[in-house]
């Protein structure tokens, strides 16, 4: 599958760039569907729809959220964060809806993103407005939903979620992620929305989704000095003692059309199975750190040139229920991934290989008001390279135990993530309570353990206590 399929895709892409093919297909499909779209059979009461006033068509809501995190391992506050997230929905004409979500955020300690972040990873139209060292404003989402017949076109800044896994990502790669709090933040908050054209077309029992993403925004990773700065050597190369390093500015793709991402997803429900097939032609959201060594009069000198690289991803998901057990899974094959290598024969410090990742999840509902969820995740670098720093076959497991009390107003849970190869991991007990319809409070711990070279162990000194509240307005 690997070579034939992707070589074909590369060949086609060379001759007929993929974004053009998918855009042409999408636009053609849109116009054809528009032409044949029948009167929408959407529910209900047309009289009610027509009689709505302007105020009936506009709805405002908001979240006010505050969270304090205290790092008890290092006896320092990690954050005292407050954010307001207003949302407006406007029902325009012909069932077209405009949704906008903004976020005003302030942090009393400025340790997650010290100073003013340069936002190099973010496409300029998508960048936050940074006000001083402690405050930023971001347009989180702004999109038009345009139904025509049974089809949907969603245009604008939005989140696209693929995949079935919790806490770990295989196919959920359409939107990049903000790692300012590693993976401790809810994905809904840490996923970075992108300017996207999202067309969904039902074809018989299959739903076709076409994505065109001109937004060239990638993962936001904490700068040096941040609480959750990455230091694990399989993520960040470590220079030998005495070697000077020059980290150059990241080289960003800058062509509006040619450097956009495109994706296709087919989903269906077949004999009790939820199935999807996914394809995504994209830039890997992590820049590849190409290294070059030179000898200068002052000694050896390493230049690191970060560049984003293209990758094809093909994969799929499934889920079904067997009695008390829900089985879910996803698998993704990625071409042209790059991994840091220590091989002395390697010229640029990185090793190119394809990567196969999958996750199997089991949710068991056997106890009343309880959930036991186990996930098994593996990632395999398909090509052999003896000097590769990360594990060639990397295995992580997760276990979630949750129990609800008092008609789901009180929720207790504990999440445990464990990397099998390195023996490091993270444990997250949490207690949350819904005071009333609008206010929820919570408290919990985030505990890291293991070797500093591991994904979780690199934050072994970041154990923290959190307490927070959320007010829905």
């Amino acid at each position, binding site marked *: 599958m690997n070579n034939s399929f992707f070589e074909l895709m590369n060949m086609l892409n060379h001759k007929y760039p993929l974004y053009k093919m998918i855009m042409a297909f999408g636009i053609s499909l849109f116009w054809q569907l528009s032409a044949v779209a029948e009167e*929408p*059979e*959407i*529910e*209900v*009461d047309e009289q*009610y729809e027509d009689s709505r006033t302007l105020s009936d068509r506009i709805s405002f*809501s*908001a*979240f006010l959220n505050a969270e304090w995190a205290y790092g008890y391992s290092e006896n320092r506050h990690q954050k005292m964060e407050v954010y307001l997230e207003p949302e407006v929905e406007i029902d325009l004409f012909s069932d077209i809806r405009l949704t906008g979500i903004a976020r005003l955020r302030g942090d009393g300690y400025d340790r997650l993103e010290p100073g003013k972040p340069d936002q190099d990873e973010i496409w300029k139209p998508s960048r936050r407005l940074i006000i001083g060292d402690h405050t930023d404003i971001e347009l989180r989402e702004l999109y038009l*939903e345009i139904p025509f017949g*049974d089809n*949907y076109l969603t245009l604008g800044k939005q*989140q696209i*979620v693929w*995949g*079935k896994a*919790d806490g770990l990502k295989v196919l959920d790669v359409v939107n990049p992620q903000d790692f300012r709090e590693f993976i401790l933040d*809810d*994905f*809904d908050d840490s996923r970075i929305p992108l300017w996207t054209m999202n067309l*969904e077309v*039902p074809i018989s029992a299959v*739903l076709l989704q076409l994505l065109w993403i001109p937004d060239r925004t990638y993962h936001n990773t904490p700068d040096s000095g941040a609480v959750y700065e990455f230091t694990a050597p399989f993520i960040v190369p470590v220079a030998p003692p005495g070697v000077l390093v020059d980290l150059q500015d990241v080289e960003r793709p800058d062509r509006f059309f040619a450097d956009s991402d495109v994706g296709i997803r087919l*989903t269906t*429900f077949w004999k*009790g199975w*939820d199935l999807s097939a996914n394809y995504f032609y994209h830039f890997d959201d992590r820049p590849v750190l190409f290294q070059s060594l030179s000898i200068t009069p002052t000694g050896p000198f390493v230049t690191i040139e970060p560049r984003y690289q293209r990758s094809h991803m093909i994969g799929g998901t499934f*889920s*079904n*229920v067997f*009695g*008390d*057990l*829900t089985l*879910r899974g996803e698998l993704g094959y990625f071409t042209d991934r790059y991994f840091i290598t220590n091989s002395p024969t390697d010229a640029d410090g990185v090793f190119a290989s394809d990567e196969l990742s999958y996750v199997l999840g089991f*949710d068991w*509902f056997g106890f*009343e*008001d309880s959930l036991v969820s186990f996930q098994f995740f593996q990632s395999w670098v398909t090509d052999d390279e003896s000097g590769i720093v990360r594990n060639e076959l990397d295995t992580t497991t997760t276990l979630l135990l949750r129990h609800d009390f*008092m*008609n*789901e*107003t009180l929720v207790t849970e504990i999440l445990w993530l464990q990397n099998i190869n390195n023996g490091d991991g993270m444990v997250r007990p949490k207690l949350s309570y*819904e005071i*009333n*319809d*609008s206010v*929820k409070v919570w408290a919990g711990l985030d505990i890291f353990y293991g070797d500093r070279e591991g994904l979780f162990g690199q934050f072994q000194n970041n154990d923290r206590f959190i307490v927070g509240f*959320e007010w*829905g*307005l």
Partner: protein
Amino acid sequence: MKMLNQLIQNSVGAITISALSFSPIMVNAAENDLPSGREIIERVNARDEGESVARDLLMEMTDKRGKKRERDTKSFRKYFGDEKRTVIFYQSPKNIKGTAFLTYDYPDADRDDDQWLYLPASRKVRRISASDRGDYFLGTDFTYEDIKLESKIGINDYIQKTVGEETIDGHHCYVVESIPVNEETAKELGYGRVLARIDSEIWIVRKAEFWDRKDNPLKTIQNKNISQVQGIWTTHIIDVQNHKTGHHTSFTFSNINYQAKIADSVFTERALRRGL
């Protein structure tokens, strides 16, 4: 509403036999002259509930200290042949807005139902095990089974027996007792016994009492404000009192429309994600 109504009826419907000693109040207990429990349940199940229905549903939940929570929802139900599909979209409050629940209820008793739940915080649609039908639905005093059954009665889950007659709110009712067919079913449903009062004219359950598997009083459901909507008998308010926890749930239905055109696409995973 009506669905839930029928849910109740369902549970009721599944009635059975077991000991007469269970039936508390009986009027004219000339049991042999009364229609059998199964007959009554079949009448309940055969009652017209429309091919489809769209309605607003206000859920009010009050704990024993009087703390009240409210959820505004819109719900839709439609038959696809003998297969019934039901979807509920949460509209408010803000912290639960966007949550949606979808169920496919198959006529084949051997086939498990399929259920999905969309939680906006994760932006993912999750499959829910249909065998957790005795679990309580999103903080209410209804079980998932109650919500799913809506208007049909799980006739195969119980053994039914008519144990008497009563007058509820001035309406003549048959009293039907239902007992799960076996321990496993009782465990799944969370009920050890159900006693339902079924209106003998319109075949709607007006009141139902539930006991747990140890025969302790569990909850009482009352259907109120029953009237015809577009020619179909419909319950507008369902009250549930949980005797174990002191928690109370009230469902109030409005804007009921049995003639609404509901697109098939409303009952899909995509609709859960997108909402209304």
